[in-house]
């Protein structure tokens, strides 16, 4: 009676494991990793105080065929406004639109994190015939590729944030990317970690390209340096899960020397787990969220914050104006991707901003700052 159940359970577990391991390899591309790490060393073209119009190693393409009399209608199909990073980004984008008098209408459609909704959103925008240009922040890569290809046949398209598997868009705007993000954090840990120290990796979810790139960038560095990674856990972005997982690891191993994170939103929860447990602070990697930066300064942590800068939300609007006035734009517009270290930490701390505000919004000089972003 019990045997079939046992076999069934074993099969389920085996299937789940296969799925878990298959997912990681699918997202790794050595050539991209090498290219991205190279970008980290390169000087970006353009004014250094406006990184959102800088570009690394750009190849410009002609856009004269898209030039058009204003005012224009700019359409934006957005994957979602469902986390603080996207809220800060979208607020910044709206402020950027206000800086362009030639943009008569800005139509924003929120896909609420659904591939299906985004596909029908884009089809709706195309059918309306209102758009002079279409900006897409794809919800997932593969699912959105066909509809972006359809859109390319009708009007100029700009893709940013996450990618699609086609080069038909006029411009693809992205920071350097996930490999560099993960590698910067991992290299910092390798340098700081005491001999024989252990590392816990905290990830949000499996299967999202941006996040998988971050982990594969880090995983190789840990492997090559022979670092003892005691676990790689998924927190689902929940602070309570994060705290519980870290507490469990502290109980299991007595001490954790370093925490690597693929996103900074739960970094403070991880740090608090050490406080509540009475363990010394770990070496930790976070992101440019204010709560983490404040904690870092107040407790004098050994930390680093790679970023996926929210100022990238300004660039598509700027690119839209360039394309509609026929100026050449970079085909792959690679934005610089700074990281915050102990040396420049103070520059990014903004006590007047909400705790979950992202410091690299590039929005400080925009109209309505800081109130528009929830600051005081």
């Amino acid at each position, binding site marked *: 009676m019990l045997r079939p159940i046992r076999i069934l359970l074993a099969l389920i577990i085996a299937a*789940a494991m296969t799925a878990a391991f298959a997912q990681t390899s699918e997202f790794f591309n050595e050539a991209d990793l090498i290219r991205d790490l190279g970008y980290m060393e390169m000087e970006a073209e353009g004014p250094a105080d406006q990184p959102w119009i800088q570009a690394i190693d750009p190849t410009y393409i002609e856009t004269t065929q898209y030039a058009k009399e204003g005012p224009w209608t700019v359409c934006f199909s957005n994957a979602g406004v*469902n986390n603080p990073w996207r809220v800060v980004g979208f607020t910044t984008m709206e402020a950027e639109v206000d800086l362009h008098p030639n943009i008569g209408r800005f139509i924003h459609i929120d896909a609420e994190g659904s591939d299906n909704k985004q596909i029908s959103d884009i089809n709706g925008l195309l059918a309306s015939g209102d758009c002079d240009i279409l900006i897409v922040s794809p919800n997932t890569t593969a699912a959105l590729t066909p509809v972006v290809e359809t859109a390319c046949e009708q009007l100029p398209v700009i893709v940013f944030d996450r990618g699609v598997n086609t080069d038909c868009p006029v411009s693809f705007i992205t920071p350097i990317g996930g490999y560099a993000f993960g590698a910067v954090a991992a290299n910092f840990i390798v340098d700081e970690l005491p001999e024989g120290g252990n590392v816990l990796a905290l990830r949000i979810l499996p299967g999202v390209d941006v996040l998988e790139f971050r982990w594969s960038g880090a995983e190789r560095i840990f492997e090559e340096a022979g670092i003892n990674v005691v676990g790689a856990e998924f927190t689902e972005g929940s602070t309570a899960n994060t705290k519980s997982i870290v507490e469990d690891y502290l109980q299991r191993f007595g001490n954790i020397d370093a925490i690597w994170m693929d996103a900074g939103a739960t970094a403070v929860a991880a740090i608090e787990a050490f406080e509540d447990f009475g363990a010394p602070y770990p070496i930790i990697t976070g992101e440019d969220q204010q709560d983490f930066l404040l904690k870092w300064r107040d407790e004098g942590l050994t930390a680093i914050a790679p970023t996926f800068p929210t100022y990238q939300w300004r660039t598509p609007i700027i690119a839209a104006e360039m394309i509609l006035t026929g100026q050449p734009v970079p085909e792959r517009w690679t934005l610089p991707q700074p990281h915050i270290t102990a040396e420049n930490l103070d520059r990014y701390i903004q006590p007047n901003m909400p*705790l979950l505000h992202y410091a690299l919004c590039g929005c400080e000089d925009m109209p309505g700052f800081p109130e528009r972003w929830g600051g005081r």
Partner: protein
Amino acid sequence: MSDTRTATQVPAWRVALAAVGKSAPVFLVLLILIAWITYLNPRFIEPSFFLNFLRRSAPLMILAAGQLFVVVSGGFDLSQGSLVTLTVLAGALLAFGDPANTWWVILVLYGIGLLVGVFNGAVTSYLRVPSFITTLGMLLTLKGLALLITGGAPRGALPPNFRAFGRAFIEDVPLLGRLPWAVIVLFVLSALFVYLFHYTVLGKQALAIGDNQRAAALAGIHVPRVRITAFVMSSLSAVTAGIMLGGFSGVSINVGDGLELEAISAVVLGGAALLGGRGNMPAALAGALTLQALFTLLNFLGLPSPIRVTVQGAIIIGAVGYAAWRAVRAGQERGA
């Protein structure tokens, strides 16, 4: 060797075990899980570690206790999780990190909880909308409200004295070591919940409605009043859980995601019948603790996340299936 007993006597431990097993198998499962975790990590049952485990489990246990009132009366409360989120986000926004604000903010939050519960109960009772639909609507409303008041990016912060309920410890307690505030809150509320459910007319009336609403009404029970009270219990427990979770892990926009399903799972693990009429408060609390112990065990086993989710699902189905099988068998023995 026990020389005073005859060979046919049943050992005392088997009697005790049978009693535990009969009241609800969840206690047995809980014991097995705790024993397993302790085997993997003997420090787990040291007082300070175990208290920490209770601290972490407290929000889910309180949620499950509130959910039980609704489930036994024949409903669901799917709005618990988003009420937790709203509590944390609104708490941070209203208090804005200033400890002087904590007390009135907590009062306002309970006021919101009261309104939500009354609304859920009234719509379900008077408009005859199934609670599944009412509370699903409420889930979306509260979630939308939480996003609306914060613009999607949480503002403000929870002051330390607000967070104390979920985070602070009383240091150097004799025998126990560090005693978390959350555990004290948990014990006080558990006692209150057991009292309300088993020793007042409220629990019995809720059970009667869940078993047979028409019979309960004919017996003179004011069905809407009991049902509204049950939803209010559920909402107030969600606000309490929100205060404790916000304390435990701080402000985040997804703090309550999926908690309503965990609470319902816990109640079912505790042997409550999903369509009402049967349920037991200590078992529901144990169900929540069991679920949390399961999560902890899977962490300790170091299983990759997808397996964790699968095992979690399998165990919940197993527990419910076992309860159903027992019910059928009990029915057969009675000749039904």
